[in-house]
């Protein structure tokens, strides 16, 4: 079983972030929220592992 990766793991992080902002460009807040929700579900499915997903939820809850 693998661990939740919280160290740097995205090549060209700036490209990813620009693509993420680009996806939201021109959307209303409601449409943007819906896009984020779909994105979370798609990424969760890609990860698949319930243990990792619950660690990710904990990490997100404890920051901010």
């Amino acid at each position, binding site marked *: 079983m693998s661990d939740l*990766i*919280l*160290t*740097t*793991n*995205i090549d060209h*992080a*700036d490209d*990813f*972030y*620009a693509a*993420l*902002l680009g996806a*939201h*460009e021109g*959307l209303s*807040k409601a449409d*943007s*929220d819906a896009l*984020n929700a779909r994105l979370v579900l798609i990424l969760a499915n890609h990860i698949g592992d319930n243990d990792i997903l619950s660690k990710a939820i904990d*990490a*997100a809850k*404890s*920051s*901010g």
Partner: protein
Amino acid sequence: MNKIFETPLYAYSRSPDQESEVAVRHKIVIVGAGPIGLAAAIDLAQNDIPVVVLDDNDKVSSGSRAICFAKRPLEILDRLGCGDAMVDKGVEWDLGKVFFKEREIYQFNFLAETGSKRPAFINLQQYYFEEYLVARVRELQAEGKAIEIRGGNKVSAIGVHDDHVVLEIDTSEGPYNIETDWLIACDGANSTTRQMMGMDFGGRVFEDHFLVADVIMEADFPTERWFWFDPPFNRGQSALLHKQPDNVWRIDFQLGWDIDREEELKPENIDKHLRAMLGAEVEYELEWSSIYTFQCRRMEQFHKGRVIFAGDAAHQVSPFGARGANSGIQDTDNLIWKLKLVLEGSAPESLLDSYDYERIHGADENIVNSTRSTDFITPNSEMSRVLRDAVLDLAEEHDFARPLVNSGRLSVPCTYDDSPLNTADGLDGPEISRPGSTCPDAPFGDGFLLNELGDKFVLLTIDADAPELVEEDGIAVTRLEISAKDDTSGAIRRRYLGNEPTAVYLIRPDQHVAARRPNYNENLMRAAIRRATGKE
């Protein structure tokens, strides 16, 4: 005491051109005695090409303006004979701290690579930068070089012909005309040359304002770059603190879009911002302040016939990442050797098309980087801010989010991949020295490699045989011989050989790699030289 930027350094004086009945013809005229115009002029004079620089003013820039100079421009300044003056005066730094709301969320080191002569960055006020360039101009004049700065000379009209340009110049003693074979416009983002020629300058304007204040104070802040997102002293906005020489601190406050510019610039309002940030008791002197908005724009083409644009006149970026003056110096570095070959008749005029190709590539890379920084620092929608704040919250605890924090990606030279001047890579060598890259510096003998390369074509051989001199159609290429045995630091091996035992590099006068192979091959090298000079 007069500040350097209050002292006329090139006051108007009457030129013999003004007595002439017919317009005197020059080889090269540069409009604008800012950092880029002066760098171009020095490069030309060092190559024994006469040059006249016109400027409507007679002083260096007022206020610090560009303050952060990166390694590559410093290396170019070494070649121009004023790198030491800049680095000796400048403040070196490598630590950055990021704050979000009330707390410091992390710090980072710009892990300066060892084994190069120049540091990753220095901070230096633009007025010093220009002062040292002017001093270098005076030095060249004393050596008898034909380089001249004419202050109080304002270009008021321009007539473009196939093989020359006519300039009408206003002075306090009335107008006069001159002609020039070539004109280099380095007259800044609001280039009047560009406007007079009716050339486009398209791009994106950001809806935000920043207040910039240069403050002289005795402060015990360390020499670091501090960046605040949404701090208590400037709610909902950002702020930046940077140290310059002479105890001058650059402080930037984001103000937002809907502001009353004149109101914000009143000393009592600037004082409010400063005391909120630095504490009520702080003692300081305000040296300079300004409010800026920012744009990312560039011209469609950087030269048209005999008129060539460089620096902010050709491309403008937002200030985050220090990509303005730094990229302008790289423009002239790219341009001058090409122009020299064209003037000598040893390369076709079409070689200048590669200036457009390569520097537009550089400008676009800078625009992408500075646009992204701007989007992070000044989110333009609610969701953009939500995502930005999420990155900052996560970055405090988690390493993975830190590369996403973008308070400016500091200027690095671009690699001219796919340039028409490159020969296809023939060496299974390191990526950082592939064709199109700037030569990475490395310790060499008692000094450094880049100083040995100079400003001519060089055949760099590492444990490979080659002739001492190759001449191809008017282009002389001299050999610089290196043995890996003498490479005690291992930097040359890492940066130029990789796993290969030998290498031969063709290096351009701007110290970019044009071609590389494991060994010398006469026919291939001659073809590479022709290609690097726009003949294939």
